């Protein structure tokens, strides 16, 4: 299979972060354009991951089962660390891994740090102040009713901890997802004793996600082609969202019935049977040893600094 690399700038448009929309940027964009852009960006991200996971890099060579286990292990280690220098070292260690796995360093760093200011940065900023985190004031900012206020050492450390921990965690997950084809990730979950039914459903959900995405894009493009100028009527806009999401459900359900027929026609009787095709190699052993060593060093160092 030949794959054309998707240039990183294709992913620059909008960071698709917390889709619940409670926190994050709310651009003044029209709902139709925004939804179309959202669908396109989803597909682009999937295509990008397909490209990167097909590269001949370091992590691409590791058995997906081992990769899932080791990266989840490292995530746990990250969450156990209590000191900024240790976390910082862990974060820095992800960078050469990314490079060795043929990920663009610029993209890798950006993907992580674009997330931080939007979600974490905004939340953590107030935590540095003595209002929120009590402690020794290191940067006094004046007085309030006779009490000193300012940035506390505890607040600063807490903010630093959370920012670097989030950055390291995201880096680890990005390393996993960008170096493992989705299919192998699913197969790895299956091999790791996640119930087959659950994996089957997840695989199918992912597959039809893109199919239904096409319908969404079609509906919104059709709407756009009929619109003159900007959509300003909020009520009509809401009615359209209700109708399009409703129509989508109709389509999704009809599709699920068709898929059901197609499964039954090929002898499906409620038992998920699958093929496993992994074999462990020397590189896997090396990788596991390296991860274990890293975990021991990190946790030992963290304990040595103190709790």
């Amino acid at each position, binding site marked *: *299979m030949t794959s054309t690399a998707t240039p990183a700038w294709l992913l620059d448009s909008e960071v698709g972060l917390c889709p619940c929309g409670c926190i994050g940027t709310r651009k003044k964009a029209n709902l139709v354009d925004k939804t179309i852009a959202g669908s396109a960006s989803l597909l682009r991200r999937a295509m990008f991951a397909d490209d990167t996971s097909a590269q001949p890099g370091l992590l691409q060579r590791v058995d997906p089962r081992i990769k899932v286990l080791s990266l989840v292990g490292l995530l746990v280690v990250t969450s156990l660390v209590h000191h900024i220098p240790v976390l910082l070292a862990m974060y820095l260690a992800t960078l050469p891994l990314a490079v060795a796995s043929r990920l663009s360093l610029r993209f890798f760093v950006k993907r992580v740090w674009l997330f931080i200011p939007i979600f974490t940065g905004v939340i953590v900023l107030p935590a540095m102040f003595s209002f929120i985190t009590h402690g020794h004031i290191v940067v006094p900012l004046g007085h309030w009713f006779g009490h000193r206020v300012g940035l506390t050492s505890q607040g600063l450390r807490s903010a630093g901890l959370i920012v670097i921990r989030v950055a390291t965690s995201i880096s680890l997950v990005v390393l996993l997802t960008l170096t493992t084809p*989705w299919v192998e990730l699913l197969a790895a979950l299956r091999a790791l004793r996640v119930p087959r039914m659950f994996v089957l459903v997840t695989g199918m959900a992912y597959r039809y996600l893109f*199919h239904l995405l096409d319908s969404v894009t079609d509906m919104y493009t059709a709407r756009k082609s009929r619109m003159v100028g900007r959509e300003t009527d909020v009520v009509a806009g809401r009615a359209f969202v209700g109708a399009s999401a409703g129509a989508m459900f109709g389509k999704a359900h009809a599709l699920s019935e068709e898929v059901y027929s197609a499964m039954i*026609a*090929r*002898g499906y009787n409620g038992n998920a049977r699958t*093929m496993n095709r992994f074999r462990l190699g020397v590189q896997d052993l090396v990788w596991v040893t390296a991860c274990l060593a890293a975990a021991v060093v990190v946790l030992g160092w963290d304990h040595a600094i103190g709790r």
Partner: protein
Amino acid sequence: MQSVADPILVVDGVSYSYLDKFPALVDVSLTVRRGEKVALLGANGCGKSTLLKVLDGLVFPDAGSYHAFGTAVTEQHLEDQQFSEGFRSRVGFVFQNSDAQVFSSNVRDEIAFGPLNMAMPLDQVKRRVDDTLEMLDIADIADRAPYQLSGGQKKRVAIASVLVMNPEVLIFDEPTAALDPRTQHWLMELIVELNRAGKTIVLATHDLATLETLADRCAVFSEDHRIIADGTPEDILADRRLLLSVNLIHDDDPMHEHPHMLIP
């Protein structure tokens, strides 16, 4: 080995309605013999797809009976593991919508789905999957996800996922619909070839141009969900009044005297 004239699928006086309200089949009878190529002809919504689903044991008639290979195909019989495995491996269904048929997360898993359900040993499944990939010339896309496939490739994968079970009867719903001319041509050749190799073919179509290649017998559906004619493609195509009455052609349609022969 049984004779060529041996009836293998027998539908007798079958009626079926969706949601008990909308009739799709009204008193339909059809016999498919071993080695035949039978086309179900009719306008959209006449019931031909429903009949295909009856033939594949996906829906069960409200009235009438359906026998395959001498045994009645009913919901209860298909609950039986052994009967179900036998029937499902002998009758293969290529759906019109490849997107519904290609539901696994990659091509290889998709093709392996049927044989795995038949509880075939793993190494045999692997061998068969590889052979099928080779045969349909899709080995290069074996590890791709469905959303990376073109419409024609999806159709090939859908067909591969059925052929891998080596069925005796192959059912195609609108096989040539929405395909580019090249894939269309390839598929027609494949159907003819499979038939030569001894497979029984049943297909639904409203494409008169491909009829003479794809069928040696046609059953024509009226718009009130009955079969009103059964004969050779030549006879059916010559009967302009019949085709007009079932809305397969319209008044100012220049009648295909000689339907396009895509396969010489």
